């Protein structure tokens, strides 16, 4: 098993005809993902990469039975794209787009409150269940099917982590990039909950960073609800306070945003802390050996 996406996923791509949209759709298809539809308003009726394109998400869902959407729409229009997918009843929406205004996301979250749609992102690399389905930007070939779940606020640091794991022969169940924005659709806690329930996930790697309190909330969940071992790393121990470190959410304002506070909370909750970003893989290996 895996979480959120697998062989049964029927993926729709919003913004499929754009540069990034078509580049990554091609790679998702090559990986084996079933991309069943694309949506670009004004290009309905055409076909791209062998995939039928529709004007609206509603029509695309009706015609193809799409059950997940991957969004590559520019920031100014991305909130609207998320709402359209939720309105069409798509249960899983993955928004790659970076730079969506925060008040647009406030409005999106308010709209999603009474909908059943789960949002991943925005400002994220998407997710992959190795060997089954890829709905995101990650290079498929660095992954290996297995039993470690990965959840992260950072894209490339996740690639780094996965490469370390695969290099040690440790496979992954699902890798989820929840994104670097301050108001992510799904939080660490949401994804940890799914990993805890997933039979094929035996341990979890959590990669956090400075800013906000998501890691502290994850720590609380780990302490109270998780029985599976968790390895954690928090980036930004050397980041200065008050500066936005690339990600909109990566800014230390107040002591709770610091890496040291987050690491302390995770360690106190029983997570094993990787001593450096270069040692995440080896830390997982040690934890797996102790727990086997």
């Amino acid at each position, binding site marked *: 098993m895996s979480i959120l996406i697998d062989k049964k996923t029927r993926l729709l791509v919003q913004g499929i005809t754009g540069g*990034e949209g078509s580049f*990554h759709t091609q790679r998702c298809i090559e990986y084996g993902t079933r991309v069943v539809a694309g949506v670009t308003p004004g290009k309905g009726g055409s076909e791209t990469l062998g995939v039928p394109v529709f004007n609206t998400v509603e029509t695309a869902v009706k015609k193809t039975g799409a059950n997940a959407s991957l969004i590559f729409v520019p*920031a*100014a229009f991305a909130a609207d794209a998320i709402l359209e997918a939720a309105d069409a009843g798509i249960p899983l929406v993955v928004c790659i787009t970076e*730079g*969506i*205004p*925060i*008040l*647009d*996301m*406030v*409005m999106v*979250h*308010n709209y999603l409150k009474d909908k059943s749609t789960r949002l991943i992102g925005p400002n994220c*690399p998407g997710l992959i269940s190795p060997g089954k389905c890829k709905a995101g*930007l*990650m*290079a498929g070939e*660095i992954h290996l099917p297995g039993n470690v779940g990965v959840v*992260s*606020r*950072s*894209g*490339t*640091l*996740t*690639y*780094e982590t996965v*490469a370390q794991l695969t290099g040690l022969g440790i496979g992954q169940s699902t890798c989820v990039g929840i994104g*670097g924005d*301050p*108001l992510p659709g799904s939080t660490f806690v949401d994804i940890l909950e799914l990993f805890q329930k997933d039979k094929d996930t035996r341990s979890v790697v959590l*990669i956090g*960073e*400075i800013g*906000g*309190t*998501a890691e502290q909330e994850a720590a609380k969940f780990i302490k109270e609800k998780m029985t599976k071992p968790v390895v954690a*790393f928090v*980036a*930004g*121990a*050397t*980041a*200065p306070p*008050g*500066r*936005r*470190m*690339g*990600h*909109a959410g*990566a800014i230390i304002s*107040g002591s709770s945003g610091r890496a040291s506070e987050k690491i302390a909370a995770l360690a106190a909750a029983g997570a094993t802390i990787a001593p*450096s*970003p*270069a*040692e995440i893989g080896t830390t997982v290996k040690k934890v797996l050996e102790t727990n086997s």
Partner: protein
Amino acid sequence: MKIHEYQAKALLSEFGIPVPKGAVASTPAEAKSIAAELTGKVAIKAQVYAGGRGKAGGIKVSNTPEEAEKLAGQILGTRLVTRQTAPEGVPVSKVLVEKAVSVQRELYLSIIVDNASRMPAMMASEAGGMDIEEVARVSPEKILKVYIDPASGFQAFQGRKLAYGMNLSPTQVRPATRLMTNLYQLFQAKDCSLAEINPLVVTADGEILALDAKLNFDDNALFRHSDIEQLHDVEQEDPLEVKANELGVKNYIKMDGNIGCMVNGAGLAMAVMDLITKAGGRPANFLDIGTVNNTDRVVAAFKVFTTDPSVKAVLVNIFGGIARVDVIAQGIVEAHQQMDIRLPLVVRLAGTNVDEGKRILAQSKIRFIEATNFYDAARKAVAAAKGERN
């Protein structure tokens, strides 16, 4: 994005929020004539992107236009060092000259987006004029908070809750509620990330007005606020960061070390800084080079490195996903062809099109130190910056 206090107050005014009478001056003579027009006691406030001005000598009070001229002359053209600035301080090119207000009470009012509730939250406190984080730490019960439903907006009952909560008199509650409603309207209309009035004062006459004002804006929303974007004062920023930005290198933050860093991805870039520090060095900057579709940004980043006199070595760590390793490698080569770069260069490449990237670097004539993994890269860069041979 930040703006100056005088600009923030103009926006507050535009949205119907009372502020003291005043105007901005760039010269002592201007300060004198503003003071003469205002009559009586005036406050002269240095306009900088930093708090803690009062204690740093950036706010003065004068009784006559002549004194205002003299005091403005003491502040204008200097660099103000406060607890929030770098040791070299920030330049003062403008002062705000304001009619002095006789203060009866100092309150606090602000709006931010609250991450946990995913809603805007308005905070109010009777403990105004102090650092609100300090108030939150020492006496959290003094901070009142209401969450604003984005669909229905700020409601009058929420205003009454905060106003009565701050022990305002019944006649002050209505104007306070109106002020709060207006502040939320401004917050929403201009895509603020922070709207803070500290202190919000009750004057001796019982009037409520914003004695200080701080407005920060969501960088991601500036595309729909060109009026706000043009208020940006680059003089207040680090000159290297300004140059990087002009060259199209976004997400560059100057640090105090000597290893220039080029990394793709914000999390990985922070992790690289952490590793450099662990290996005994210090990064000269944070840089997320982002998704690179052509070589321009890579070349521009090297321009920034060569402009920064503190840089003694460059570390390139790329894990290609969206970013293509071959394009970055080509950019490194072009930078070395266009500029005379003598800095030791440590390169670690992995991910999408890595073989092509390595081939491009190998075939070029540039000298570089190849790193096999993440930690190896940091270690080699630290050694190179110290002048050690690898």
